[in-house]
C-alpha cells in the first residue's frame, strides 16, 4: 500500500493550493476503499464513506473540526493522527463519563474501557432515536455486549460477569425488546444510565439499593406505588437493610415473567431466605410438598400473601386478613367457606406451644410408628436368627 500512499500524496501536493485542508481534500484520499494503514501487523481501513458521514450528526462539520491537529496541515499529514477529543465540544458528557465506572482511572486494564466511539461510532454517529444508531434502544444491548458479553474481557475484570448479556436476553426485558420488538422495553441504559454509569455498590448508582425502586418505577410506576405501601416497602423506607427491593424477588438481568412456573418456583425460595420459619411450616403442607417438587399447582407465597401488596394480617386490605380469607382461599378452592379457612397453612406440629392439638396428634403417630417398628423389628430379627439356625441344622 505504501507506494500508492506516496503516489496519492504526491497527487494531492500537485492538485491543492497552499491552504487548510477542506473536507473534499480529505476525501480525495479517504474515499478510496483500498486505503489502509498497518496497525499492529493488521491492515486497518482508512476509507470514509462520504454519504454516511454527510448523514451523520456531524455531517455539517469539517474533518478538521474534530481532527484538530490537521487544521494547520497544508497539504499532507503524517502517519500518526491525534485521537479526536470529543470533550472539546461535549464537555458536560465528558465530565459524566469521567465520574463513571467507565472512567479510565478505574480500571486495571485501561485499554478495555470504552471511549466515546466504542459506543457511538466514529464517522457514522447518528442521534439515539435513529433506528440505525449504535445507541438506538434496539441496538443498545448489542453495543454494550461487545464488551459485557465478552468472556475474554470479563476474565480481566473480576467485577464483570459475561453472563449478564445472555441473562438479559433470556429475561423479560430482553424478550420484549428482541422477540417482540418493543423498543420501550428496558435496555441497559434505562436502568444503568448512559454516560454516568456507576457501580451498583455506589449509592449514586441508579441500580443501588437506595435508588433501584425509583429506577424500576420509571416504567413500573403503579407497582412501585403499591410496593411502597406494603410491609416490604415500608421496611425499605425505614432504611432497613433487610427490606427486599425489586431485584430481591425479580432478579436483575434475567427477570422472569411473574406468571411463569420458573419464577413462581424460585420466588418461594427467595421468600424463604428471609422467612425460613414460614418456609419450614409451608413444607409440611400439601401446598409446600407440591411446590417442593417444582410444581406450581398448589398455593405458593404470593398466592395467599400477594406480591407487591403484601400487608400485615391486621390490615383490613391484607389478603390474609381474616375477613378476606374466604376470598383468598376461594381463588383456588372454589366454594371455600368460613369453616374451610380455619385450616392452618403454617401450622407447626413440632411446636407444642404453638399448635398443641396437632403436636399431640403428631406425637401419637410417632409413638405408633416407633412402637410398631421397634416391636416387629425385634420380632423379625429374633425370628430370622432362630429360623436360620433351625434351617441350617435341618440341612446338616
Amino acid at each position, binding site marked *: 500500500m505504501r507506494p500508492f500512499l506516496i503516489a496519492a500524496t504526491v497527487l494531492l501536493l500537485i492538485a491543492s493550493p497552499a491552504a487548510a485542508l477542506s473536507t473534499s481534500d480529505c476525501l480525495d484520499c479517504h474515499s478510496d476503499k483500498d486505503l489502509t494503514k498497518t496497525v499492529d501487523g493488521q491492515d486497518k481501513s482508512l476509507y470514509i464513506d462520504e454519504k454516511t458521514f454527510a448523514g451523520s450528526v456531524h455531517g455539517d462539520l469539517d474533518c478538521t473540526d474534530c481532527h484538530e491537529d490537521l487544521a494547520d496541515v497544508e497539504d499532507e499529514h503524517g502517519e500518526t493522527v491525534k485521537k479526536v477529543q470529543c470533550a472539546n465540544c461535549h464537555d458536560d458528557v465528558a465530565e459524566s463519563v469521567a465520574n463513571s465506572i467507565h472512567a479510565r482511572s478505574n480500571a486495571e486494564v485501561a485499554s478495555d474501557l470504552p471511549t466515546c466511539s466504542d459506543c457511538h461510532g466514529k464517522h457514522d454517529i447518528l442521534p439515539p432515536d435513529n433506528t440505525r444508531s449504535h445507541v438506538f434502544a434496539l441496538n443498545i444491548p448489542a453495543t454494550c455486549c461487545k464488551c459485557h458479553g465478552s468472556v475474554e474481557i470479563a476474565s480481566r475484570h473480576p467485577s464483570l460477569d459475561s453472563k449478564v448479556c445472555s441473562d438479559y436476553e433470556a429475561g423479560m426485558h430482553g424478550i420484549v425488546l428482541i422477540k417482540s420488538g418493543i423498543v420501550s422495553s428496558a435496555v441497559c441504559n434505562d436502568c444503568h444510565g448512559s454516560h454516568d454509569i456507576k457501580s451498583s455498590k455506589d449509592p449514586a448508582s441508579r441500580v443501588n439499593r437506595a435508588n433501584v425502586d425509583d429506577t424500576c418505577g420509571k416504567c413500573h410506576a403503579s407497582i412501585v406505588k403499591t410496593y411502597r405501601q406494603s410491609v416490604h416497602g415500608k421496611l425499605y423506607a425505614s432504611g432497613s437493610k433487610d427490606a427486599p427491593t425489586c431485584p430481591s424477588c425479580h432478579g436483575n438481568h434475567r427477570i422472569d415473567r411473574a406468571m411463569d412456573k420458573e419464577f413462581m418456583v424460585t420466588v418461594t425460595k427467595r421468600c424463604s431466605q428471609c422467612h425460613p420459619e414460614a418456609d419450614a411450616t409451608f413444607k409440611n403442607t400439601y401446598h409446600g410438598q407440591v411446590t417442593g417438587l417444582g410444581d406450581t399447582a398448589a398455593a405458593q407465597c404470593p398466592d395467599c400473601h400477594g406480591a407487591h401488596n403484601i400487608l400485615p394480617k391486621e390490615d383490613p386490605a391484607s389478603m390474609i386478613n381474616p375477613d378476606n380469607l374466604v376470598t383468598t382461599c376461594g381463588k383456588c378452592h372454589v366454594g371455600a367457606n368460613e*369453616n374451610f379457612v380455619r385450616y392452618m397453612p403454617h401450622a407447626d406440629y413440632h411446636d407444642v406451644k404453638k399448635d398443641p392439638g396437632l403436636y399431640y396428634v403428631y406425637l401419637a403417630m410417632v409413638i405408633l410408628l416407633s412402637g*410398631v417398628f421397634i416391636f416387629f423389628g425385634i420380632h423379625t430379627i429374633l425370628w430370622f436368627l432362630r429360623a436360620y439356625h433351625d434351617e441350617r441344622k435341618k440341612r446338616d
Partner: protein
Amino acid sequence: MNDSMHVDQAGLEDKWYLRFTYYHRFLHALIIISFLGLVLTGMPLKFNESAWAKGWANLLGGIQTAAYIHRFFALITFLYFFLHLAFALYYIVRVRKEPFFKWLLGPNSMMPWIKDVDDIIAHFRWFLGLGERPRFDRFTYWEKFDYMAVFWGVGIIGVSGLLLWFPVFFAKFMPGWVFNVAIILHSDEALLAAGFIFTIHFFNTHLRPEKFPLDFVIFTGRVTEKELRHERPLEYERLVENGELESISTTPPSRMTLIWARIVGFTAYGIGLIMIILIVYSAIQELH
C-alpha cells in the same frame, strides 16, 4: 429342603388343601395393585425435597398426574375394603355355623384373643430357645395384626385421604383444622403402612428362611398336607377331628399359577425394596 421347593417339586406328590378361595385371592390381588400404586404415587410428595422424588414425579407425568393416578388406586382401595365388608357380613349372616361370639373368639375369626397373647410370648420364647414352637391355628397373631393393620390403615388413610381430596365439601360440616390433622395422619400412617408391608410383612410371610423366597399360598390358595400339619397343627387336628379335612381337599396348583405368583411376587419385592431404600435414604438426608 425348604418348603417352597417342596410346593414346587415334591409338592405334586402331596395332598393339597384349599386355604384361600378365589374371592380371598382376588381381594389380595386388589390390595397388592392398589397399595403399590398408592405408595409409588404418594411417596414423592412426602419426600419432595429429594432429587429422586422430583425425577420420579416427572416420570409419572408431573405430580398432578401422579395425584390422579393416586386417586384411581384409592378407589380400588375403597372397592376392596367394601367388598371385604360385604364378604364379612355375608359370612357372618349366611356361612357362620357357630353362635356369633363363639365364632368371633374362635379360630376362624380374625379377632385377636387370649391365645394370640400366649402365642406371642411362646413365639418369643422359641426365638430364644426357651421353649417349643407354639402350635398355631388357622390364623396366627402376625396374620391377624396384618389384617387389623389394613383395616385400621385403610380407615385412617382412607378417611383422611377423602378429606384432603374434597376439602371444600367436607368444610361444609367441619372446621378447616381437620385438614391439618388429616395431613399428619395420612402421611405418617402411609409411611407406617409402606414401611411395615415392605419389611415386616414381606419377612413374616415370604422371606423368612422357612418360606424363602416366596410363600405361594395367597396366589394359589393351596397348601400341602405337610405344610398344614407343620404350620397350623391345631387347625389340621381340628379339621381331622371334625371330619372336615376332606371338604377342603383340592388339586395341586397349576404351573401357570406358580409362574404368575413369581412374576407378581418378585415385582412387588422389587418395588418394595426400592421404596424402602429411598425412604431410608431420604429420612437420613432430612436428619442432616
